[in-house]
């Protein structure tokens, strides 16, 4: 209980810090919505040239993009700033965090909670709502639960990917943009029907890394469409399983990373 209060205080402090630069805050707020708007805009522009991409119509593709947008925005809001870990390792901020009586990861996240990204979450869920409206699926109890679970699983999945990518900095401080290949790259990957990708690339990202299960498979299950790639329809309901699997990996990697940091220093 006391611990929760401490975390709340940390988040409150971050909010007050941000509001002390009011005009920059407004600008960054607008800029952040812009980033997600452009993602969706790209999908719309591509559909100007054709009515189907990878065998899917615009509303169907928009549903995949919507789940990804909503989940990614949520993940980015909560844990996205963990990719500043390399700066913290280099500047020694991590040491200051480690001498406080709280767990390291929540402290890092709350110290830097990007409130401006909240608007993006709203926009992402807005896109998802529009996409659902356009597709008008046959509602069954299973689908209703899936529409709630899918964006949340996507958020847990992407958040875990953020943590794993950032943990790289424990071993490799100069990893630079490498993590973005999996975080932002993963988001772009999952914004389109995975039928568009070549078999090898798809095999790696969609199935080995699991990005198929965050939006493509749930979207198929919601739409009641058979998977052209042959997975059964329950694969859409595997989204939470995939999310927890990746979250478990992320927790392990983070812990190993902290242990490694302790044994090597910066």
């Amino acid at each position: 209980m006391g611990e929760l209060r401490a975390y709340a205080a940390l988040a409150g402090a971050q909010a007050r810090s941000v509001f002390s630069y009011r005009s920059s805050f407004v600008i960054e707020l607008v800029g952040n919505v812009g980033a997600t708007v452009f993602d969706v805009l790209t999908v719309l522009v591509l559909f100007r040239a054709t009515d189907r991409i990878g065998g899917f119509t615009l509303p169907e593709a928009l549903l995949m993009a919507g789940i990804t947008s909503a989940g990614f925005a949520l993940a980015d809001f909560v844990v996205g700033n963990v990719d500043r870990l390399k700066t913290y390792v280099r500047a020694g901020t991590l040491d200051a965090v480690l001498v406080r009586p709280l767990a390291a990861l929540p402290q890092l996240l709350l110290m830097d909670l990007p409130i401006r990204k909240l608007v993006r979450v709203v926009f992402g869920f807005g896109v998802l709502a529009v996409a659902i409206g356009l597709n008008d699926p046959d509602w069954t109890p299973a689908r209703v639960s899936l529409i709630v679970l899918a964006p949340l699983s996507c958020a847990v999945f992407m958040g875990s990917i953020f943590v794993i990518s950032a943990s790289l900095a424990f071993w490799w401080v100069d990893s630079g943009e490498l993590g973005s290949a999996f975080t932002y790259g993963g988001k772009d990957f999952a914004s389109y029907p995975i039928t568009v990708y070549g078999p090898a690339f798809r095999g790696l990202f969609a199935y080995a890394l699991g990005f198929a299960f965050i939006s493509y498979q749930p979207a198929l299950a919601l739409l009641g469409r058979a998977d052209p790639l042959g997975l059964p329809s329950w694969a859409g309901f595997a989204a939470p399983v995939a999310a927890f699997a990746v979250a478990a990996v992320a927790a392990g990697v983070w812990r190993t990373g902290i242990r490694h940091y302790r044994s090597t220093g910066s």
Partner: protein
Amino acid sequence: MIKTEDLRKDFAVRVKSGRFRREKRTVEAVAGVSLNIGAGEMVGYIGPNGAGKSTTLKMLTGVLSPSGGQVEVCGLRPVPQRTKLALRIGVVFGQRSQLWWDLPLGESFALLRHIYRVPAAEHRERLRRCRELLDLDGFMDTPVRQLSLGQRMRGELTAALLHGPRVLFLDEPTIGLDVVSKQAVRSFLAELGGTGDVTLVLTTHDLADIERLCERLVVIDHGRVVHDGTIEALHARYGSRRSLVADLSSPLPEGFELPGATLIGVEADRHRVTFALDGVTAGAAVADLVAAVPIRDLSVVEPDIEDVVARLYVSGAP
């Protein structure tokens, strides 16, 4: 309060060997440090750059895990019991801030109360004392980023003490400060140490900090303790002596000898001489000198700790 036994820390570093090959080599940053620091002690922990000071401090505070040996602070093992230990120790890193950069100083303190879960009354009382002793009132509402380094350091000290730690670790607390701020920090720490409630461990490059604050001095070099004792013991061990500098009205006669002292310097046509005092008191030496030659001016110079430590660093290599 602090106990280490053969504490070690090895780092694996990759060294370039040849054009493309890299070789893994182990560097012993801390190579078997055994310390026993009692409650209320004030200990200066010094050594040249890269000697292992910060590494030791990080192992004591739970940031780094030791590669070997035992370590116990406040009866706890730092790494496995890190969050528990964090409530009992305070840490000030001279070059890193614990404060919230964009918030007024006062808000950082309020936040720390939540983080360390300090009862409001205790917090108020400790803060009141710090405000008084460190004269914080003028800038409690200023965002930390706008504070001068001296003001910030006073803020950092307060931040580290608000939860009433039993051990305070200070890593270069006076680095970069101006003379006045250094004085302020030193007298605050002296006062704090004087109460005997807090154990102080202080690393520094400024030996004046040590002379002013610490009874006990631990010198580390190449990861090993090369001296552990009082400053006097250090002087005694390295034979540093007080010296007597005299300006004479007439040149010092050739072959002059002062009992118990050695002539170590002759300047200005034998009008200025320096004797190192080996076994005699300054009074006896002065009396002997005055009796022998007419003196215009004279002074007794204390041994310089900087010299001793510099010699120690050079010769300290195993």
